[in-house]
C-alpha cells in the first residue's frame, strides 16, 4: 500500500487563533500557540516604587490590597475613551520580595506599555507606591 507523507499539521501557530505565526519552516520569533480557547497574553508585572525598588507583595494579598487592585486594573481595560477586553485566566504572585505578579489574560486588549502606564498612573495602591512598576510581555516564557 502506498504511503502518503504528512506535510501539514506542524506545531506552528495557525493565523485564526494564535498570537504569533511561524508560517512554514524555521521560526523567526518566539512561537506562542494557544491550542484551545481564546488568544492568551502573558504579562510580567514587577511592582516597584518611584525609586525602582521592588515592593514585597507577600503582605498585599487581602481584600482591597495591592495585588487585588492591580488585578482589577487589568480586568477593567480602558484606554481612556474605549473599554476593551481582558479576562484574567490565571495569575501567580511570587512568595518572595521581588514584587512579581505573572498574569495570563484571555482576549486581552492590553499592551505592556498601556498596562504599565495604567498601573503607574494610580500612584499608590493600598499605600504602596507603584509609580515605578514595570510590565513586560514575554509570552509564555517560563522562568
Amino acid at each position: 500500500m502506498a504511503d502518503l507523507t504528512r506535510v501539514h499539521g506542524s506545531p506552528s501557530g495557525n493565523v485564526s487563533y494564535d498570537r504569533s505565526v511561524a508560517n512554514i519552516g524555521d521560526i523567526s520569533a518566539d512561537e506562542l500557540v494557544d491550542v484551545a480557547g481564546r488568544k492568551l497574553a502573558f504579562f510580567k508585572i514587577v511592582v516597584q516604587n518611584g525609586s525602582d525598588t521592588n515592593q514585597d507583595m507577600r503582605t498585599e494579598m487581602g481584600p482591597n490590597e495591592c495585588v487585588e487592585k492591580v488585578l482589577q486594573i487589568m480586568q477593567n481595560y480602558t484606554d481612556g475613551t474605549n473599554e476593551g477586553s481582558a479576562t484574567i485566566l490565571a495569575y501567580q504572585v511570587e512568595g518572595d520580595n521581588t514584587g512579581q505578579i505573572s498574569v495570563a489574560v484571555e482576549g486581552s486588549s492590553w499592551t505592556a506599555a498601556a498596562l504599565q502606564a495604567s498601573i503607574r498612573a494610580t500612584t499608590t495602591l493600598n499605600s504602596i507606591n507603584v509609580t515605578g512598576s514595570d510590565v513586560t510581555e514575554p509570552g509564555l516564557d517560563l522562568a
Partner: protein
Amino acid sequence: MADVTRVNGDPLGVVAVDASRGDTDADGVLDATLTVANVGRQCAWMAIIVKNGSAEAVDLQAEVDTGDSVEAILKAIQASEVSSTQYGGEILAYQVEDDATGQISVMVAGSNWTASDMQTAIQALGTTVGNNTLDISGSTVTDTGMKLATS
C-alpha cells in the same frame, strides 16, 4: 448610611479550583508562591530545556515542522500515560523560544505530570527524534509555576 468593610474575597486561592494556596497558615501573608486559576481546570506550567546526551541545549528554531522534534515532544506530553491509570494532561498553550536555548514552555490543563515524570518521558524519546533525528536524551523539565521570564 452605614459602611460595611469587605473582609472576604481576597486574591488568595480557593482550594477547590486552584493549584496552590500560598497562604498556608491563613494569616493573610504569603508563605509560598501562589498560583491561581480563575477558570477551567488546574494548570501545570513546565519549562522544558531540550538537551542532548551531553547536556548541551538543542536549538529548536528549525524544529517546528511537521514530524520534527517539537511535535514529538508535544505528542509525548499530550498522549503519554504517567501511570497505567493516569494520562498526562491537555496542552492549553505552549511557546517555543526563538533562540538557541532549546526551551519549550507548556501550560497543561488537568495535568497528572510531575516534572520528573515528564522529564523521564521526554528523555525516553531517545537519540533519533523527529525528521532530523535529534538526540534529546538529556532534556530537563522544571515545574516553574506560572513565573514568567523577563523576555
